[in-house]
């Protein structure tokens, strides 16, 4: 009785319908993700997205798709740690001066400390000071904490259990980084051993000179001019 051809058609139709339903669902889910991300000025975590979407939705896939859709637009979808946010495209910065906010200017010391914390995290205060070769003034860490870019991370499992510092999600957001590994040049620095607390064994040890007091070919002797530049000598006065 059964007409196989008819069955086939039925199955096809069923399949098509399923596909269609999936497509509708996906496009609906995509719209939902889009709406939630658009509504927030802050990055939204994947966890928060999942909580707001039907359980059978593949959030990671949708985010990938949405990122693709917006990749050449005036607004891009950007990943910040485990969170996502729409941001204006960087090449349009010139248009946005009306929106620009006055960024707090960091002192040179604060900036250096920030970079060390970012590249060396988790880092203790003692390590930080070892790298800079100077005590960190009281205000510096305080100022950085206030920006919300650095935080106490935890404690190092060594005697004394010193506090470790690291960067925050808002640091990543502010500097447009997806994760800490995206810090500019971090791989090269690590490769060169410059992110370790101690001198790596393969770090080139210079060949000692025969006469340590003799300058090499490519050295200039230190002149009074140099010292003047350093602000240590007052300009020379001709002898009468």
């Amino acid at each position, binding site marked *: 009785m059964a007409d196989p051809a008819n069955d086939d058609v039925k199955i096809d139709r069923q399949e098509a319908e399923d596909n269609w339903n999936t497509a509708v669902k996906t496009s609906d889910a995509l719209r939902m993700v889009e709406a939630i991300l658009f*509504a*927030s*000025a*802050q990055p*939204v975590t994947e*966890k*928060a997205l999942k909580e707001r979407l039907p359980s059978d939705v593949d959030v990671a896939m949708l985010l990938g798709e949405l990122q693709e859709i917006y990749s050449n637009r005036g607004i891009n979808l950007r990943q910040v740690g485990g969170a996502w946010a*729409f*941001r*204006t495209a*960087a090449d349009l*910065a010139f248009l*946005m001066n009306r*929106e*620009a906010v006055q960024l707090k200017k960091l002192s*040179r010391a604060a*900036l*250096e400390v*920030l*970079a060390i914390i*970012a*590249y*060396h995290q988790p880092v203790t205060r003692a390590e930080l000071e070892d*790298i*800079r*070769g*100077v*005590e960190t003034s009281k205000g510096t860490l305080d100022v950085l904490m206030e920006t919300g870019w650095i*935080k106490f991370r935890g404690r190092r499992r*060594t*005697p004394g259990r010193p506090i470790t510092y690291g960067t925050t999600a808002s640091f990543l957001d*502010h*500097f*447009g980084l997806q994760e800490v590994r995206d810090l*500019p*040049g971090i791989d090269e620095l690590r490769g*060169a051993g410059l992110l*370790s*607390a101690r*001198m790596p064994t393969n*770090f*080139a*040890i*210079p060949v*000692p000179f025969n006469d*340590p*007091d003799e*300058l*090499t070919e*490519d*050295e*200039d002797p*230190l002149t009074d001019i*140099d*010292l003047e530049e*350093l*602000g*240590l000598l007052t*300009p020379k*006065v001709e002898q009468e």
Partner: protein
Amino acid sequence: MEALWESQVDRAASEPSLVIDIQGFEGPLDLLLHLARNQRVDLARISVVALVEQYLVFIRQAQALRLELAADYLVMAAWLTYLKSKLLIPKAPGEEGESGEELAATLQFRLKRLEAMRDAAMKLINCNRLGRDVFPRGMPEAVIVDQTNAYSATLYELLTAYASQRQKRATSHVQIARRSVWSLKDAREILMRLVGEMKDWTALDQYLLEFITTPAERASAIASSFAASLEMVREGHLEIRQTGAFKPIYLRNRPEEPMKDVVNG
């Protein structure tokens, strides 16, 4: 106008604390980096001895001008003097500790690392920054949180509140008089930093006294650093040796169990 024609000596005599901008430098390592840069060669190829020499000249000039130098600069000067002596005297066979070359390499490593961090800082501020290059939604329609908690507070806010509250209650009127002598604590801190670098017998006091003290403080400095060194011996941080009465006192870092480094896995 006339001030310009005044000789250095007169100036030093008439102005007890002449202000020269050493604040442009972020510490002794920064100053060394600047001097190394002046050698106009790759950091790996600088002459460490020349660099040490330049640094010491700088410090002596500053002292001659009676500038107040932060202790960090002087501790570095003492260490560099030590380094120089190690570089100039070849290592005797069987001698313990790091060679001058190894110490010099450590210094070069530290300079390179600092320079790398400085470059990194520049790259960092030139990233596309939020609020300068890229912008968030200007009219957010909702706050999306993944915590059920309706209250927000950061650890920083918590700690600030605690510290300032406790401080307010504790230090209504505490004034600590300016010290004119070396406290035991100062001596200890400086010794700790110097000795941390020295793995073989060193007559430390000579470096210490040369750079860190003024003649007026010398007696106090000797007494305090000696007392501090005894305490550090007792605690196991230090070993101490003297061959006879009034002979130099040798110190060395007592090797510790190597600490496990948990950084960056």
